């Protein structure tokens, strides 16, 4: 039975279609794995075994009736940020205690419409604010990877740490995730999995708990490039319920896999060689360039001069939007309420008790930069810098670059409760230095495993594409995957 959880989505799909295995068998194998491993990894905050078995049974009936969907019978984990009807949806925050929405997010509905099976809800940083999954009300997720010869517990990255850890530990066939500043790509890099943040507007944001509305995008975390392509095809759609959903047909991403890179131009941005970057990151980046060159692509140096301003601009724009989005948690319509002497006291006590430290910090920054007298100096300035960041990319693409190759993160996974990082919020923010530019410009970005460092921990490379050109990312990432191989943690649990 446990062997079934080793199958990729593409492999499971083939076996289900050939009726070699049933959806119920596959789901049961995952539920057994979750029961055994989740107490150690803490990737799931809610498991839905009854719902999973019911959905799997329905999948088997549809397969038997010749009506199988694109993801028929595939067991998935859903990040706690996605609204799932009558199921735990709390963005891993105390303030949403007990919240079970009466509606379903568009992305998860798309997956169920294609026959996927829900295993449960996945742990994450509270309201997707964090890079280590340590800000979750439900406790940190433990990375299934450990450094060789070490017993230290490592973070899986964040905010989609539960999604990445569940995929790496084979506690689901694939997972949904979201990315506001790197929350798909950084955890994917830390766990040896594949993650793609598509172009802003590709996946509907309807029913996803909002963090920073102009930056948030949903995407998959998967075991390999093909599985990521299969998942994104189902997650993406044109949705009238999201006014920023873009009216473009969803391509067959899987068809791009295996296409030639001959004649392609890959840009290498000089500004991503940051001070103090470990030599190993530099090496894996060079390897990536060599692999793409061997596959027929041309490597060209490019300049993205405003790169260094992306992170500071992000830490104005994202908290500003968050402070506004999180104003809705007031103890009236859902979640936690702490009584007070009057209504304002009730609001203040509820929010003080319900939000964690990092969320409060960002609400404070956002409220401050939007407050009277500071709007122009901070928010307006940041939005202008954002225009310049986007322009840097537009110039590179106009000069014939098809995709950009960078490291995904400035290091491999770090330890849980790292004191150096905990003492200075800005240090934690620097984890997103390579990923955040992509959100600021609304572009698609993908993290693909490229090797292991000297500690035996996975390192990822990032590919950045033109708007709505996810297909180029899939075909390029596949070449890297073919050369680098795929990576699984050694079982210690």
């Amino acid at each position, binding site marked *: 039975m446990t062997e079934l959880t080793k199958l990729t989505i593409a492999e499971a799909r083939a076996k289900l279609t050939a009726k070699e295995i049933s959806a119920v068998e596959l789901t049961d194998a995952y539920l057994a794995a979750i029961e055994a491993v989740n107490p150690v990894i803490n990737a799931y905050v809610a498991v839905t075994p009854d719902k999973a078995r019911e959905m799997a049974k329905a999948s088997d009936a549809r397969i038997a009736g010749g009506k199988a969907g694109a993801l028929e019978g595939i067991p998935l984990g859903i990040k706690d940020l996605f609204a799932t009807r009558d199921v735990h949806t709390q963005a891993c925050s105390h303030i949403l205690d007990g*919240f*079970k929405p*009466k*509606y379903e997010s568009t992305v998860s509905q798309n997956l169920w419409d294609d026959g996927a099976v829900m295993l449960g809800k996945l742990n994450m940083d509270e309201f997707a604010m964090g890079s280590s999954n340590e800000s979750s009300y439900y406790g940190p997720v433990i990375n299934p990877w450990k450094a060789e010869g070490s017993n230290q517990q490592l973070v899986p990255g964040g905010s989609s740490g539960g999604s990445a850890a569940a995929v790496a530990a084979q506690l689901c066939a694939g997972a949904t995730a979201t990315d506001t500043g790197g929350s798909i790509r950084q955890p994917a890099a830390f766990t040896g999995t594949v993650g793609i943040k598509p172009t*802003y*507007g590709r996946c509907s944001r309807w029913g996803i708990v909002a963090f920073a509305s*102009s930056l948030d995008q949903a995407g998959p975390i998967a075991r390999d490039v093909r599985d990521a392509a299969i998942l994104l095809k189902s997650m993406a759609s044109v949705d009238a319920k999201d*006014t*920023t*959903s*873009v*009216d473009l047909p969803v391509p067959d991403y899987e068809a791009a896999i295996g296409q030639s890179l001959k004649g392609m131009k890959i840009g290498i941005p000089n500004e991503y060689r940051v001070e103090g970057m470990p030599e190993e990151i530099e090496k894996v980046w060079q390897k990536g360039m060599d692999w793409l060159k061997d596959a027929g692509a041309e490597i060209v140096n490019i300049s993205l001069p*405003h790169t*260094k*301003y992306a992170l*500071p*601009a992000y*830490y*104005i724009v994202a908290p500003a939007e968050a402070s506004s989005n999180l104003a809705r948690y007031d103890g*009236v*319509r*859902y*979640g*936690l*309420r702490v*009584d007070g002497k*009057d*209504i*304002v006291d*009730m*609001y*203040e006590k509820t*929010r*003080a008790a319900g*939000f964690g430290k990092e969320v*409060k*910090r960002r*609400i*404070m*920054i956002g*409220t*401050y930069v939007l*407050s009277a007298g500071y709007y122009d*100096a901070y928010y*307006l*300035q*940041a*939005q*202008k*810098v*954002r*225009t*310049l960041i*986007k322009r840097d990319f537009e110039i590179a693409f106009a000069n014939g670059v098809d995709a950009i190759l960078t490291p995904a993160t400035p290091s491999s996974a770090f330890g849980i409760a790292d004191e150096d990082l905990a003492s200075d*919020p*800005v240090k934690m*923010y620097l984890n997103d230095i390579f990923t955040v530019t992509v959100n600021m*410009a*609304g572009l698609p970005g993908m993290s693909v495993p490229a090797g292991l460092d000297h500690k035996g921990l996975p390192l990822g490379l990032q590919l950045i594409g033109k*708007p709505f050109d996810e297909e180029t990312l899939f075909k390029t990432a596949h070449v890297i995957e073919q050369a680098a191989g795929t990576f699984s943690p050694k079982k210690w649990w």
Partner: protein
Amino acid sequence: MSVDLATVKRVARLARLAVSEEEAQKMMGELNGILGFVEQLSEVNVKDVEPMTSVTPMVMRKRVDVVNDGDKAADIVANAPATTENFFMVPKVVE
């Protein structure tokens, strides 16, 4: 720019977050750290640069102005901490 304790308390009030004296002190240090970090943005020349308001150049699609949903009062109050007859209950706001 840096914030003093009075500003931290005023912003916390605007954000509807109850903070203790000790928390306000701690927040002051953290906020000044973050504000110091973002300060470097002021060195960027943004003359004649339009602020970004939309990440993709598209006209926002609008729905037709018709009633297409409703009659779900029970669903809407289902998650509220206190309700009566499909109304949200809050502490008295008018004396």
